[in-house]
């Protein structure tokens, strides 16, 4: 390890951090714009041309608002809840590969913050820590709606985490590694894993909707029954952090899906063009962000297409359909590898 390594990594962390927050902020704008489009309205158009400054206006407004901590609440946990949510949402991007590598002055700079060989486990670990943010915040509010929202969120997230873990196991059986960087490299010279693992991808997709608390699984904050769910009592930037964490999680799960199942930064047939390595890396990174943005759009599209589940349906889908289905997927994958891949 030398000093340049640290500087490289710090710059990379800063850039990725800024990009992920920027995309999360602008997905709130595009969510409202698309909502307008789907419902034949205009959507936000007051702040700046086409309302393009809306996320900045929202952010400034949230920071400037009065901070209310209810008298019955536990102040330390009340502040810790949204902070933990935001922190875990920002941590997952560390192990994702954003591109192959750049060559600057004869040095290879990989466009990945940390290529650890337990990448997938790290993602799971950090994502499951996120549930503490909702649980702590909802409980600390000392409000009945918040408590119900929080225990709903906790029980929904842990239920879908099992099916998500099982669907990834089938992928790991094919790749033979837990490093996300290596999994993306494998897809460059072969099929994308979505072709080999269609059922696994479908289960993973459904589970990531549940993990990010998005419609049709947004029961923790379903406004018709629970006011605002776990963030009923929150105001100012603490509320902002919960909403921001949701959009950051959406970005992260889109990135994980594109990396694991849709080849990440790999572009089909690009090696046939014999381009300069730096150019290839930049095209790859742009392709990766294209895939991510498509999935974010998909999240929004589903929100305005599918109505919300009832809670018993949600638990039934998670435990009694997705878990058996993902075990069947593991067995099928095992047979497939043993028969065709020997």
């Amino acid at each position, binding site marked *: 390890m030398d000093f340049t390594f*640290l500087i490289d990594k710090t710059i990379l*962390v800063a850039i990725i951090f800024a990009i992920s927050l920027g995309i999360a902020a602008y997905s709130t704008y595009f969510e409202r714009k698309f909502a307008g489009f789907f419902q034949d309205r205009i959507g936000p158009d007051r702040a700046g041309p086409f309302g393009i400054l809306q996320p900045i206006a929202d952010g400034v407004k949230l920071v400037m608002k*009065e901070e209310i901590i209810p*008298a019955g609440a536990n102040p330390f946990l009340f502040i810790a809840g949204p902070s933990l949510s935001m922190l875990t949402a920002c941590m997952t991007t560390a192990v994702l590969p954003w591109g192959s590598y750049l060559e600057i002055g004869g040095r290879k700079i990989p466009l990945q913050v940390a290529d650890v060989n337990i990448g997938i*486990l*790290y993602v799971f670990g950090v994502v499951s820590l996120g549930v503490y943010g909702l649980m702590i915040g909802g409980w600390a509010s000392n*409000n009945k709606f918040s408590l119900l929202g929080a225990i709903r969120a906790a029980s929904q997230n842990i239920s879908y985490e099992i099916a998500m873990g099982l669907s990834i196991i089938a992928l790991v059986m094919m790749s033979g590694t837990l490093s996300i960087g290596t999994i993306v490299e494998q897809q460059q010279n072969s099929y994308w894993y979505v072709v080999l693992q269609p059922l696994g991808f479908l289960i993973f997709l459904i589970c990531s909707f549940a993990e990010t608390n998005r419609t049709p699984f947004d029961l923790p904050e379903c406004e018709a029954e629970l006011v605002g769910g776990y963030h009923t*009592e929150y105001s100012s930037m603490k509320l902002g952090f919960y909403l921001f964490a949701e959009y950051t999680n959406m970005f992260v799960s889109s990135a994980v899906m594109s990396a694991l199942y849709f080849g990440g930064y790999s572009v089909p047939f690009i090696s046939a063009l014999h381009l300069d390595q730096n150019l290839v890396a930049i095209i790859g990174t742009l392709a990766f962000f294209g895939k991510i943005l498509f999935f974010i759009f998909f999240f929004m599209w589903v929100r305005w297409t599918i109505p919300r589940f009832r809670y018993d349906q949600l638990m039934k889908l998670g435990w009694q359909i997705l*878990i058996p289905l993902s075990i069947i997927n593991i067995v099928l994958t095992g047979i497939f590898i043993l028969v065709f891949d020997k």
Partner: protein
Amino acid sequence: METNLPVDYLPILIQFFVAAGFVVTTMVLTHLVGPKRDSKNKLESFECGIESVGNARNPFSIKYFLTAILFVLFDVEVIFMYPWAVNFRELGIFGFVEMLIFMTFLLVGFFYVIKRKALDWE
């Protein structure tokens, strides 16, 4: 390049400090910038406009607790499967049969849980 040295994890630590710095700065900033006009009614917990009754630290449905207990059991099973999945090709048919036996036991337990209606929310 697959190595496993502590230095590989150093960038994650950098990212942690950047993220924690962002969170703490924003929290302190919003605390300093926002106005503070407390009143007794404002600090009451929200209950759709009517006066709030009692405390929210009430007992709630046992179903949530059951789900959490079952989650711990099944999540441990899932973690057991990861090392097996990574080495699947080397273990070959032997490993596959062993895991089928393991999964059968898991599914017997799962079937029992469903039959006892532990996962029914009606």
